[in-house]
């Protein structure tokens, strides 16, 4: 009797194992696909200072909310289930409440796992995003007016945002002061976006990977190479006279 029951037990064991493994496997696959989706974060959702690239951050953050609790300006919030941002992770929306760039960076200090980089000691070094003047058609400074609000509210005024004067072609006699963002200084705090006086902000902060282009590594800009070398890279280059079409009245 026991001899005969053995192969049946083995059969049953294998069947049970296969059932459990495959059932859980299907579920795991769905979970994996869901995790892939969770990586896409809406452009207006910015991560706290010290957060690494999204993939790293989603692997490191335990969703405890300690950074949210220690944010003195209630800038940070935890994504609830159903929000576009991966559930339980901290984020802020610059147009609602921007980052006030606390000098002691309490959110980073609060993070128990290091998902917010503890080596970040100067808030000016944080890169939460990058401001982009997205709409020249509505920006008041581009109309030749002196709004300047984004420039004035910038915590790194004259470094992260400067005003560059340009000729106002419309009036012919005036200057335009164009707010210009410099990515080497902009922290992405979002105060410019918050401050923009328009109904919909003309300057917005995006996650840096959305805001920044990248040149090919092999690109060499002639004038830079020339400056580096101190002379032309092609010495003795003959500059031929430009030939213009002859003027025939």
């Amino acid at each position, binding site marked *: 009797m026991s001899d005969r029951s053995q192969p049946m037990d083995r059969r049953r064991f294998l069947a049970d194992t296969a059932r*459990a493994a495959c059932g859980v496997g299907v579920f795991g696959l769905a*979970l994996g696909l869901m995790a892939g989706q969770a990586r896409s974060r809406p452009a207006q959702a910015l991560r706290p200072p010290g957060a690494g690239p999204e993939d790293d951050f989603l692997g490191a953050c*335990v969703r*405890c*909310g300690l950074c949210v609790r220690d944010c003195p300006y209630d800038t940070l919030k935890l994504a609830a289930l159903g929000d576009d941002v991966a*559930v339980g992770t901290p984020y802020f929306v610059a147009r609602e409440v921007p980052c006030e760039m606390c000098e002691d960076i309490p959110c980073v200090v609060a*993070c128990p*796992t290091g998902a917010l980089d503890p080596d970040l000691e100067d808030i000016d070094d944080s890169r939460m995003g990058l401001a982009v003047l997205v709409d020249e058609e509505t920006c008041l400074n581009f109309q030749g007016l002196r709004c300047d609000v984004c420039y004035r509210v910038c915590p790194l005024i004259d470094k992260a945002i400067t005003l560059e004067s340009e000729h106002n072609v419309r009036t012919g006699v005036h200057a335009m002061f164009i707010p210009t963002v410099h990515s080497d200084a902009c922290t992405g705090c979002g105060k410019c976006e918050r401050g923009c006086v328009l109904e919909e902000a003309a300057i917005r902060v995006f996650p840096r990977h959305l805001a920044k282009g990248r040149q090919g590594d092999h690109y060499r800009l002639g004038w830079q190479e020339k400056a580096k070398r101190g002379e032309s890279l092609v010495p003795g280059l003959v500059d031929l006279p430009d030939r213009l079409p002859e003027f025939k009245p």
Partner: protein
Amino acid sequence: MSAETRPGAAACTTKGWFAAHKWLILRRLSQFSVIGLFLLGPLAGIWFIKGNLASSLILDTVPLSDPFVLLQTMFAGHLPETTALTGAAIVLVAYALVGGRAYCSWVCPVNVVTDVAAWARRRLDLRGGVRINRRTRYWVLAMVPVAAVATGVIAWELVNPVTLTFRAIVFGAGAAWMVVLAVFLYDLFVAERGWCGHLCPMGAFYSIVGTVSLVRVSARDRGACDSCMDCYAICPEPQVLSPAVRGGETGAGPVVLSPNCTNCGRCIDVCAPDVFAFTTRFNTEVDDGDKAQPEVMRKAA
């Protein structure tokens, strides 16, 4: 189910209602106190503890971290800072003392939901349903790190009802109530004790933590057992009871050693002859001169 056959009815008459619900009341007090302490900060501005069950900080000094969640970050390729590692170590030591799955029955907010589902199931006399192997939870537990490695994201935390529920209570709900409702309905109509006792990988994880845990339930007065089966009816993991309760015949000790036991103490509550009591795993004493003195038996064998 009539009032007479409800598990614990006999205990209510012999011991009184409070004695027959003592551990249940203490457990609910514990579960709601945990929630209350976390809510003291946001609601009353008293920051005794902040964060949530994934990671928290008591009085701005003592860190606590969930080792299960922290392991996921490690599998996702992140080495946590010492704060979180210290917090996880504290939690591991604590549960190794009080019983791994004491987390489930004394802290976890989902336990309240599934206990209500189990109660409603008994009240409505709903029997049967989908039968799932209780070992499935270990498969889910194995799947969690695989998903973390494969995606580089702590994927389980996207759906983990335990952390979702607790975070929803402390930080604002969103759509998390739907997950709670789903677990409740699943436990009520689909599978008896279906979530906590069969699928939850967190329960499986804490079971493993609890394999060495000190505090245990013992059927030390098992000679007095009148086989009313109330403990089996009320126990969320009834399979753990048999070796201890029926051990007199097989020579097994009276301590419930299965790591799946949640130390909820409901068996102690509902037992009219007071067979059970909390004790340590080393206390193999049997009260009434039971013939099966386990150590003697083991030596003899």
